[in-house]
């Protein structure tokens, strides 16, 4: 009788522990899924924010400038006596301000956004700005004089 009771107790205890272990494993899986989901949301947010911000930054700069000159990997935006050089180099979008009319060198600027490439082309009625962020390309058209 005593043996039977002991066995029964052991089975109940082990069963409870197994159940607890099962829930613990499930919770671990939920936490892993949640961490993955959070990481994905964070990455997407970062990518979208960088892409749209850099496109809007370039767009606003183009709209507020008097003259636009497209360079390889960048552009020069002249406004009054100053010129802004916006260019891509070393994994980032850089900008520097110089006196208009001087030699425009693509170096020594300040990093604005971390991106993987920028392409600016001049079409008849608009500029096309393509920004590469984390391997994904985002394009926008910016009208001339609108």
């Amino acid at each position, binding site marked *: 009788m005593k043996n039977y009771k002991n066995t029964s107790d052991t089975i109940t205890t082990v069963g409870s522990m197994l159940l607890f272990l099962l829930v613990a494993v499930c*919770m671990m899986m*939920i936490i892993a*899924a*949640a961490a993955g989901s959070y990481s994905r949301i964070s990455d997407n947010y970062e990518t*979208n924010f960088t892409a749209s911000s850099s496109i809007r930054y370039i767009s606003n700069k183009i709209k507020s400038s008097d003259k636009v000159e497209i360079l390889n990997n960048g552009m020069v935006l002249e406004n009054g006596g100053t010129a802004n050089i916006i260019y891509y180099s070393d994994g980032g979008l850089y900008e520097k301000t110089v006196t208009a009319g001087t030699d425009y060198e693509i170096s020594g600027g300040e990093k604005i956004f971390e991106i993987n490439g920028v392409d600016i082309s001049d079409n008849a009625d608009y500029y096309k700005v393509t920004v590469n962020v984390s391997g994904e390309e985002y*394009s*926008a*058209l910016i009208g001339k004089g*609108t």
Partner: protein
Amino acid sequence: MNISNKRPLNLFFIEIIIALLFFSISGAVILSVFAGADRRSHKSELLESVMVYSQSIAEVYAVSGNADETLKTVEKECGRLDESIELSKFEEKTENTAGTLSKLTLRFTEDGEEIYKFTCSAYIQNGGNNEQT
């Protein structure tokens, strides 16, 4: 004797069950919260891409004043939007002797739910180089 021996074990078992129930409910709540966050993140991503797309449409439309031509140009230059997004357009033109005022309203929806709606306009003067004139 038997009853007094079984009681503590049953209580322990009930306690374990209650704890497990609590954890299970917490897990379900956490899952639903993260599923909601994922859904909202997707929606936010779509909204962001639609807004950049709309900006391009507005820029091109201001020059062309023609909805079909504008959409064709933007699709060619910027690529297509996510396939789940449906785009409906409404164009209104007011002509007078000086030129044509065109007003374009675009509505982006996903599964019938509106994501973004905007209106842009263009004024094409007579004698311009646009086919609208």
